[in-house]
């Protein structure tokens, strides 16, 4: 179905609820003195939008607004992921001492707008919409990164993010302009038809795809477009870092899959995709190389980090490499494993950043020394939760991360990419070292005399407990989530 502007509105209510919440918050910011109430309103808006999104799930795939936006299970899945990350981030922000320093009204408005942009990244069906969605997310992210007042690290991180982001999105639209020139249209369906006929000049098309991959890759933080991520993760307020690490990654995955699968490839028998745009060049070899470089670089750089936020940034780069493995095999099993991993990564990484925030609230520090003997300093529950999240990030059974990694590796072994599978295994072992160094510091190291007791932030405890339970439950009973991701591969096919 192909709807016009007014008819689209009846299928657009999650976005309308979120946009309405943003507008109401903007007005309330001018008149309400108690800014903390705005957080609860934002939270309520996100929950209502979440309900609306879940309600729409399963509708017949439709194109809205004159083919600009696609409404299908795939986009709805990523909207649910984005909203879940928003709920987590707002909840974290309520308890965060760092966020208390900033102008709270603006903070929540810009945070929700960032999530709103991710909706369009997930559902763009046109090169223009993809660019607009990506830029909306980027611009709001720069603002949120640099929001901490009189903070050198925050301002520097924002500048670096802006420069890398500007270059990456400029490169991306330069590549898109070549695709536009060769396909003759911005619409994904027309591009698909042009690619099915063999595309255009192979070298030009290959360069264009690499340039586009740079823009998407910067959102996902995979090498060599990952340089911004450690600095930004370290400088930004911790709740926003948590949001960025999971939601920006998920939105990058969404826009990447929608461009390189439904728009450029054709779905064949039994879930296998034919990437027919570049018959003469080995596109998958490039993806294999990128994936290997990303996970190895991320893991090796993480080994010597003393700052836990920076360590988690490098671990995020490594996880972007793991997620990339699903792209290589060019079939629905790989995509399914990617979607599953996105959800699992959301849960465990948000949890890890929540513990970082709790420790930073109590001690004002983020380096490894602040975690010395954490379990014996009155924060036993956060320490145990951190251990669960780190075990899951490593990929140890019976945590959710193990199942996620298992699905990815199973998909690439079935596709006979044995080298990639072996490298992924070796990388898992490498990551064991730095994740478990934190666990060792928390449980086995004696607290130094100057390490005071750590008061756990009370408002964060329910979220922490829920994330920990989910990490363990999804590790032993993952079938419902797998069914959900399988159902979410329903694309709008041009």
């Amino acid at each position: 179905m192909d709807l016009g502007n007014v008819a689209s509105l009846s299928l657009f209510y999650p976005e309308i609820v979120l946009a309405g919440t943003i507008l109401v918050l903007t007005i309330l910011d001018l008149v309400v003195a108690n800014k903390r109430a705005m957080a609860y309103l934002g939270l309520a808006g996100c929950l209502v939008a979440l309900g609306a999104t879940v309600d729409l799930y399963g509708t017949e795939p439709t194109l809205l607004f004159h083919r600009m936006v696609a409404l299908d299970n795939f986009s709805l899945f990523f909207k649910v992921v984005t909203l879940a990350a928003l709920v987590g981030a707002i909840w974290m922000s309520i308890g965060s001492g760092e966020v208390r320093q900033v102008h709270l009204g603006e903070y929540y408005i810009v945070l929700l707008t960032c999530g709103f942009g991710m909706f369009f990244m997930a559902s763009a069906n046109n090169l223009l919409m993809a660019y607009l969605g990506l830029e909306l997310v980027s611009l709001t992210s720069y603002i949120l990164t640099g929001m901490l007042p009189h903070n050198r690290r925050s301002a520097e991180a924002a500048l670096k993010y802006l420069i890398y982001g500007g270059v990456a999105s400029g490169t991306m639209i330069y590549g898109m302009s070549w695709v536009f020139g060769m396909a003759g249209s911005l619409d994904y369906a027309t591009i698909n038809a042009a690619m099915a006929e063999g595309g255009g000049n192979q070298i030009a098309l290959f360069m264009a795809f690499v340039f586009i991959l740079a823009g998407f890759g910067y959102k996902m933080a995979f090498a060599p477009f990952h340089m911004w991520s450690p600095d930004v993760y370290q400088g930004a307020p911790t709740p926003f870092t948590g949001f960025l690490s999971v939601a920006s990654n998920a939105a990058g995955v969404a826009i990447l899959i929608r461009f390189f699968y439904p728009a450029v490839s054709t779905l064949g028998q039994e879930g296998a995709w034919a990437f027919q745009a570049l018959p003469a060049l080995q596109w998958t070899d490039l993806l294999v190389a990128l994936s290997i470089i990303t996970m190895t670089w991320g893991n090796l750089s993480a080994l010597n980090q003393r700052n836990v936020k920076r360590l988690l940034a490098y671990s995020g780069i490594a996880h972007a490499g793991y997620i990339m493995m699903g792209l290589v095999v060019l079939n629905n099993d790989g995509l399914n494993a990617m979607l599953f991993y996105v959800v699992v990564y959301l849960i465990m990484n948000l949890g890890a950043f929540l513990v970082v925030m709790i420790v930073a609230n109590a001690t004002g520090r983020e380096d490894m020394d602040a975690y010395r003997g954490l379990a014996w300093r009155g924060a036993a529950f956060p320490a145990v939760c951190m251990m669960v999240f780190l075990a899951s990030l490593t990929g140890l059974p019976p945590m959710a991360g193990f199942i996620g990694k298992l699905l990815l590796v199973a998909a690439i072994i079935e596709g006979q990419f044995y080298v990639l599978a072996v490298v992924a295994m070796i990388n898992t072992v490498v990551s064991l070292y730095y994740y478990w160094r934190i666990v060792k510091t928390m449980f086995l190291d004696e607290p130094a005399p100057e390490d005071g007791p750590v008061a756990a932030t009370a408002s964060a405890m329910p979220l922490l407990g829920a994330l920990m339970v989910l990490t363990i439950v999804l590790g032993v009973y993952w079938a419902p989530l797998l069914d959900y991701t399988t159902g979410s591969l329903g694309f709008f096919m041009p």
Partner: protein
Amino acid sequence: MAEYVALLADVGLKHYLVVSGILFALGIYIVLTRRNAISILLGVELILNSAGLNYVAFSHFSTGQVDGQIYTVFIIMLAASEAAIGLAIVLAIYQLFSTIDVEATETLKD
């Protein structure tokens, strides 16, 4: 005069693509070599405008529709908002570091 007009009629898609390619390369070069934050932002603008030029050229010569021109209008608008945010951040950097040299503002490392 007439021969110059005739020469202009010969300007085709390739000429525009070469100019935009040069602009793009210059933009990347500036970003990689300059140390002044404002210069780097100017380099980013060059990259964005090279893409904008491409869209208008392709739209005029190959598709014959206005969708490429519309894309360029959006690029200009987003470049303006990016410049606004960029200058605000550069101002904050100047207040905190008293310089906008990107190599002098290195506090984030392990």
